[in-house]
């Protein structure tokens, strides 16, 4: 079986699972775990969008 994801969906699936593990392992109580997991996911999302826009603008202005 072969799965082919787009760049964005691959990054989001990656962020989803990594955030779950980060949340569980880096915090001590359930509330903090959920909050930190969501924070990590949001940071992944922001990072992906920022990097995507940076590369798009770089391509646009470097022509």
């Amino acid at each position, binding site marked *: 079986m072969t*799965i082919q994801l787009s760049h964005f969906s*691959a990054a989001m699936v990656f962020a989803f699972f990594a955030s779950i593990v980060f949340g*569980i392992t880096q915090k001590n109580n359930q509330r903090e775990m959920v909050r930190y997991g969501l924070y990590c996911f949001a940071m992944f999302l922001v990072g992906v969008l920022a990097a995507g826009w940076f590369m798009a603008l770089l391509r646009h202005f470097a022509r």
Partner: protein
Amino acid sequence: MAEIVKTQMISVAPAPSWQAYAAPLLGWLVPGAGHFLLQRWVRGALIMLSVIAMFFLGVAMQGKIYVANTGDVLDMLGFVGDLGSGGLYLLSLIKDWGRGEIHLATADYGTKYIIVSGLLNVISAVDAHHIAIGKKP
């Protein structure tokens, strides 16, 4: 006075139980199992789901699984990361998965998924150790 302080210091550090060693070892071998051993059922299930899903998604994306090597530094680090998956890594060697289809654009993502699933599994195994020694609730 000094003797009282010394006695108190000795009494607050109990010897680690067998679970302190079994939990990380089991957690490395089977993702999430270390937490199951310590009766952290939900955490164990979520870790198991995350690590196993990432590993198999990586394999399904035709990611490469590294074997022991003395070549390029990145290849050696890739092997170390993959080895973190424990039982999943051994299974992949038995089944001969992860040959790496370089003509697929998503194969490189798959390789990273597999490495990171191993690294997350190591973090989880260390977390199980911390729970077992009482450093974390």
